[in-house]
């Protein structure tokens, strides 16, 4: 899976490209975990290029979010409709911090 990494000051923005499924989840988990640990949880995952995700993808997001060693946890931004439905269906949407735009997600770390 192609994953872009962008720096915005103290925050890293990860942009995975493609569906977050069982076959692709390993690359994503590795990249997201690395960025999360380097930036002490200040990570935004920009999901606008992820058309859908399966149950393995959802588990991966939860793992990256929940296993943060610091108080700060990664944010999700720009969820596609299908991803939002899947997260809502599994009652995981309320357990994650989701923002409409990457800018809002970055600013949430500065509060």
């Amino acid at each position: 899976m192609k994953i872009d990494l962008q720096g915005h000051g103290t925050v890293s923005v990860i942009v995975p490209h493609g569906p977050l499924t069982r076959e692709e989840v390993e690359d994503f988990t590795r990249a997201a975990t690395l960025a999360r640990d380097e930036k002490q949880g200040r990570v935004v995952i920009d999901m606008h290029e992820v058309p859908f995700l399966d149950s393995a993808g959802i588990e991966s997001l939860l793992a990256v979010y929940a296993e943060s060693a610091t108080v700060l946890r990664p944010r999700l931004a720009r969820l596609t409709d299908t991803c939002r439905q899947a997260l809502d269906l599994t009652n995981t949407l309320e357990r994650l911090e989701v923002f409409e735009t990457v800018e809002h997600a970055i600013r949430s770390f500065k509060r």
Partner: protein
Amino acid sequence: MKRRSGSTGVALLAGGIALLTVYQLLLIAGQRHTFEVLSLAGGAIVGYVVLGCGVYSLAAARRTAAVQPLTALPSPAGASDGERRVHGLHVAFMRWLDERAGAAPYWPAFDQFVREWVAQVFEAPRVRCFLVTPGGQRMRPLSGGDARGELELQLRGTLGQAAATGRPLIADRPAERGAPAIDWDSSAWQIVWPVRESGATIGLLAASDSSVLSRRPRSEVEACLTALSVCWRDVACRERLRVAELTDKGSGVITRRDFFDAAEHVLDGAYREREPVAVAVISLEGLRRLDDQGSWSARDRLIECVGAAMRRRMRADDVVGRFSDERFALLLRRLDGALGTLIVQKIVQSVQEEIAAAGAPCADVHVRAGLSASGAGRGLDELLIAAIDAADRARARGVEIEVDATLEAGAAR
């Protein structure tokens, strides 16, 4: 003018036949009244009448042949620019209808037709067309989704106002150069035209960057757009009829034959994008008992409610169809077995609620579901058979849902 000439023709013909008949009678009067003479005279009179009718019929046929189809008629001489544009629209629309083939939905092709026409007539390169959902709160593009991948959009801003009030917006000047890209709720649209039907807005046309709008009389612009509204409403009727023809009348979902067509199409698209799909079969057990008891109307109402409940739970690109008398088939896109199971659980719950709401005669009806998941690349028949087998296993085990994950596991290997 045509009626008067037709009546004159008939009068002349009748008069001619009468004169010939009188002449023949006068000839007879001057001769002996033999049988041969009378027969000859009678035959001549009948001949005049038949000849006259034949001439009239030939003339009538020629007049009919002289009527040209609308698509071949030129604009009436002396017509104004606006009248010519309206005439041109009607001709183009009828040609478009004639050239349409197949049973595909009307809206995507009509979207292209409208964009091309507006771009040509108003020289407006930015054109967007929307369908307004019943209730008037949301809209969706006529063709596909928007750039954000959303299918339905909340109506607000300029478009929302036009939809709610039914009042169009026609501004003379295009937006200033360097203005930000127009979003669907922007005030930078030059034309926002609501298409109305039975007192409600059913569609919206938005256009901008027209360089000619300021040079056209407003009445002409409104006449053109009103004519377009007529075409739009025509397409709306045709689309409703097309959907009605595909729909199972009892349940409100598509018939089995159309389910197969639609599901194959969706499956091809899903596999092209390497997306997983899940196929579910929902069985209603106990419907036959309702028939045997004579509770036919309760049974029919239940089927209608169950179909509606399933349609509410479906996403835009899922497919649900009436598979048999007691079974519904569902194709769920972009879902693996685990997520598919969650969706089917919610569907089963909705159906159970409908059964409970239906009351006494339907209390013994039970719903069960079987689900199979694809991984990628499995055919529809294989998925359906696996889902049906899973539903049968659910019945045998007395559980609500049974999942066949073997196909998905096989694909993963």
